């Protein structure tokens, strides 16, 4: 989510709420005989408010499970999640008087810190990564389709190489006929020149097929494979440049296509990595959040009852 000017109302509202909470906390903290405590009226108020904010933030997951339900736009829920979640931290700190307390509450506070920090990290990732991804990956596709697209790229590469080799071999057979004609009319010397050219074409054709089997196909068929030579742009450029020297100009467009295929594969790999980063943090944030809510509820019961 891009945190931009459209968040202004939320920012202002949260800032005002924080300012008010702080303005109330400071005199309370200074005047409380035994210092600010979670069990005091104000402390409880902060605690309840903070927990309610956390609960609301936690409900975002449920909201996403039923996207069609008309219970407020998902965008509003997300912004609420972000700003209420942000506000909940100072409120909980005010609730505890900046003390972490006993075993349960200490565990709870550290859990909360991890959830809160991972949330901020996630917000930052969601703010910066989409732009980065859009700029870096013009060839991106749907993440779940990456394997399929990779398979298609491998197939396409195979077809292109075959087409190039056939064109070379066609040239070979045409040249063979020319060679026979030249040998018959012009003598052995002319024949030798064409013959050496023929051999060169055949060698290039073989080299290209070898390149496909040993370099391209393994690279295209494997996810990741950054360590392979084609996984690095400069190395790949050098390899294709060598083929450009060997192949006639009319076949360079095929080489360009092969190079683009490798570039697309690199972008898909990058997309895969970025996607995991962009969504991977949720694997930390979500379970910890549920644990936080559960333990928070336990703490509330224990603290109030006993």
């Amino acid at each position, binding site marked *: *989510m*891009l945190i931009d000017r*459209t968040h202004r109302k939320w920012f202002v509202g949260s800032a005002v709420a924080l300012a008010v909470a702080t303005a109330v906390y400071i005199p309370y903290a200074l005047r409380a005989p035994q210092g600010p405590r979670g069990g005091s009226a104000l402390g409880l108020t902060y605690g309840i408010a903070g927990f309610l904010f956390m609960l609301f933030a936690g409900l*975002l997951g449920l909201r*996403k499970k*039923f*996207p*069609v*339900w*008309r*219970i407020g*736009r*998902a*965008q509003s*829920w*997300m912004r609420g999640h972000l700003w209420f979640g942000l506000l909940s931290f100072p409120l909980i700190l005010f609730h505890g008087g900046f003390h972490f307390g006993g075993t349960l509450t200490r565990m709870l506070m550290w859990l909360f810190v991890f959830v809160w920090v991972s949330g901020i990290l996630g917000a930052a990732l*969601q703010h910066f*990564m*989409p*732009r980065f*991804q*859009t700029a870096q990956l*013009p060839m991106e*596709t*749907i*993440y779940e*389709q990456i394997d399929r697209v990779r398979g298609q790229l491998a197939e396409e590469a195979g077809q292109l190489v075959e087409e190039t080799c056939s064109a070379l071999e066609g040239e070979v057979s045409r040249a063979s006929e020319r060679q026979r004609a030249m040998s018959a009319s012009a003598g052995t010397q002319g024949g030798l020149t064409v013959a050496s050219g023929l051999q060169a074409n055949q060698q290039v054709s073989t080299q290209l097929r070898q390149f496909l089997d040993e370099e391209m196909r393994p690279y295209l068929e494997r996810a990741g494979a950054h360590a392979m030579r084609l996984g690095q742009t400069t190395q790949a450029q050098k390899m294709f440049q060598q083929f450009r020297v060997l192949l006639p100009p009319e076949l360079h467009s095929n080489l360009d296509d092969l190079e683009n295929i490798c570039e697309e594969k690199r972008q898909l790999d990058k997309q895969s990595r970025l*996607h995991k980063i*962009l*969504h991977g943090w949720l694997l930390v944030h979500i379970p910890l959040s549920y644990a936080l809510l559960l333990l928070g509820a336990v703490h509330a019961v224990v603290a109030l009852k006993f």
Partner: protein
Amino acid sequence: MSTKPADEIQLTIDGRPISVPAGTTIFDAARVNGIPIPTLCHQQNENPVGVCRVCVVDVGQRVYAASCIRQVESGMTVKTSTDQVQAARNTLVELLMSDHPAPCARQQQSGDCELERLAGAAGIKEPRFPHRTTARGKDDSSAVIGVDHEACILCDRCIRGCDDIRQNWVLARRGKGYQAGIAFDNNLPMSESSCVSCGECMVSCPTGALTNKRVVGTQLGEGDVLDPAELLHLPIFQNVSGTFLELNQKAVVKRHFKAGEIVCREGDFGSTAFYILEGQAEVFLSSPIAHVKTEGSSKGFFSKLQSLLAPREGDRRSEESDRPFIPIDASVDLPYDNPIAELNPGDMFGEMTCMSYYPRSATVRARADCVMLEMLRNVLDILQRNKTFRAQLERNYRARALDSHLRSVPVFASLTQDFIDHLRDRVELLRFNPGQVICRQGDSADSFYLVRIGFVKVSEQRPGGELILAYLARGGYFGEIALLSGIPRSATCTALDHVEVVRIAGEDFQLMLDRFPDVRQKLEAIAHERIEENLRHTVQAQNVPVDQFLAQGLMEAQSLLVLDLEKCTRCDQCVRACADAHEGVSRLVREGLRFDKYLVATSCRQCRDPLCMVGCPVGSIRRRNTLEVIIEDWCIGCGLCATNCPYGNINLHPFPAELDDPAHPGHKIAGVRVKATSCDLCHDHAEPSCVYACPHDAAHRVNPPEFFAGLLTQPTPTKGGS
């Protein structure tokens, strides 16, 4: 052949004394006495014209005589095969071969090109003379006869066949010198001319200039192949050349269907048409007559959407069609309330499927034991041009379908029976081939048209190019704007495929407006809306310049789902929401073209040029004035619209249905029927679900020219900047 009374004339041909009646030509005199003389332009059943001169003979005069037209004279000494005569003939043949595309189509098909046979006999392999430098071209417009002007030797046999033998008067000569050739009517393409495809010209042609076009896979698998003689006994094949039928023999077969047997099923693809010879058949739609409705399953806070089928009465949609009849590819329309009708001997069905390869529009089942002709396109084309058959078809249409066709158009619902009877014999059924212009922008208006078969493209020529305004299917109409306003035609209407229209003359149209003021009112309102809409299209087209925008086809869209890639986290909530809203069938794919930082998702674009609407066999897909595509209740789920959509934006949504059990007639079994669906903008709610469910404010439904206005007016940066 001479018509003079017979007095015997004595002459000598190749040293043989011969006696023939006066008036006999040298050619005939030689022929009856077993002396062959080669010829190209002469055919026994035609009057000779002596244009090719291949039949020249030495009659002892300064110049050789063309034996096909020169009459015998008493005491004449004719030499038909001296070295000099042969040399002259060979030179003529060689000259003809120098412009002949050997081997021509006839030589390739059947090895019997008369010119090439003569050349072979004369030992001419490579003519010494240079080929013609100006091309005369080909005409592939006819479905049954290929015309190759390059192979034409201007023997005029085709002209004589068409005029003298068949009395059709279509063919004639045109041009002079190297530009001379044969022409159909006023040099029209063959299919657009008044040619009735009798095949006489093709049968008469000695070379590959006119050849039979074989439809690929010409042979029909099932059915009894009929002898041409049997076919010629049928009134509908009257005046068709027997040789022509022989060449197309396996393209028409006789099929026998027992009572209860299915002849064809709606939605199936096919390439044949049927003509009923005996028995009765019933034509019906087995798909549920209902549309896909998406609604909340419970009211209030936690509403969830579900998709179900709802008929017109149960769920009235805005701009829903009130048509009482469902248009199908047959000589009848089906009543909406009970979509079943009877077909009798003399009825034809499946024309659109046969000519344009559209899916079958309805299911046909034999009610009693039936005998039908099943035919391929080339035979149907012959029939459609045959005067006897056309007259029968028109009679049937006027008697059975004109009424329901007119009444199925809501604007004409109030026409009285007596007025329809008045129109019955005055309307004209006209056929147009694909690409043929029906009426042109700027022409004066004298007719109103109803579309009976096929699809018509309505377009306007603007300085920037052609602007498509609409596609009209069966039941559509055009020509009213110019007639109402007295102005020239405001648009060009072109046949997209094989189209048949009902033409109502301007005077009858005016009479209708005078007698039925409510019809005038409705037509005027619709004409006004169309003019406004056309103006909107034109203004938008003029205001949006940019290459990339146009190249991506975005100009054609009126409503795009765009995803701001700088906000989108690729969470797929939009797709999930769409699937949830439509029983698991998403109408959106988060993939598509990129324009600037936006991804144009694959979802219905409400195109200006709605290609999805072309080809619907039952005319069930159209657009409301609010841009949203509406698919009528009688969609048969053939999927052609889904195939036609260039963006893959139409889905087929399966629904459980009761189907006829083919193993047990009369019983039903559970099955699945599909109905076409596309993005419905979740019209039950204030906002589309995809947009509503996006947590990052990345998904938007926009009008492209407005949304991209800022980008579109930016100058393209130049390299190397100043």
